[in-house]
């Protein structure tokens, strides 16, 4: 199954419509989470909103994900090692408050398992392409670094608060 998702915050009819047209050309069933858009897909099964638990189950089951450039989906695709095609919302078309999804795509392009399409032709080429399963990520040094920074700061503050408390006693 191929999972299409637009996230929970905003509609993204332009993308849903393109995917609906491409769905019959694909060799797998397509399931779309479409948000509160007006366009009703006819060539793929769809649901407006999917809760986080069911969504993660769909991520586990699918062969690849085709998505708006939302961080929630990107994190889930990385966690479950699924090839991910990103199609950014554009601020100019009122698909989001600004063009940060375009910036996300530019910043993440080339990372393992992440493929980016900025227009219909690129999306059409990518959904038809064979995308390999991304290699397992054994360590994420940048993630560990941020965790250490946060844990270190909290530890420092606890010691300060403990010292203050003992002074009060």
């Amino acid at each position, binding site marked *: 199954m191929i999972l299409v998702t637009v996230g929970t915050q905003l509609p993204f009819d332009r993308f849903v419509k393109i995917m609906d047209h491409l769905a019959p050309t694909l060799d797998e069933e397509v399931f779309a989470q479409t948000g509160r858009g007006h366009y009703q897909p006819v060539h793929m099964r769809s649901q407006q909103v999917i809760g986080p638990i069911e969504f993660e189950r769909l991520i586990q089951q699918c062969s690849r994900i085709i998505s708006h450039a939302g961080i929630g989906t990107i994190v889930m695709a990385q966690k479950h090692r699924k090839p991910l095609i990103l199609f950014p919302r554009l601020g100019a078309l009122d698909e989001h408050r600004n063009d940060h999804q375009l910036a996300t795509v530019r910043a993440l392009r080339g990372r393992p398992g992440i493929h980016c399409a900025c227009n219909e032709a690129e999306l059409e080429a990518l959904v038809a392409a064979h995308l390999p399963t991304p290699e397992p990520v054994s360590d994420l040094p940048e993630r560990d670094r941020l965790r*250490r920074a*946060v844990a270190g700061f909290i530890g420092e503050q606890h010691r300060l608060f403990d010292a203050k408390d003992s002074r009060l006693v």
Partner: protein
Amino acid sequence: MLLRPAFDEGCVVFATTNRELAVRDGVDGVHLLPDANRDEPMRALASMIASARLMRRVRPHVVVTTGALPGLFCLIFGRLLGARTIWIDSIAASDRPSLSGALARPFATRWYTQWEHLQSPGRDYEGALL
């Protein structure tokens, strides 16, 4: 949730806008806040009041948030009640700091961007979750 290993499980409480997220990730006793964004003033007000109440009840020593609006409210009220605060700007803010992040600046004891090219004095880069 990607930050969870940074917290001491004995003394952390989580607040979220979606209870099912907490269920999915096995977090008990989560605090719920109404979700809001800047396009919906009445919901934003409800979220602000709920955040203020939560901070007054929990009285955290440290507030850590990646935003957006409900997280910003918690950070501000937490700071006003004496907490130290960490703002982690969303990884989606890759071309410039987010608006909520900019508003959080004066109330954040530490302010982290997740993109190295955006670091500047007072906007530290110490890694990224993704």
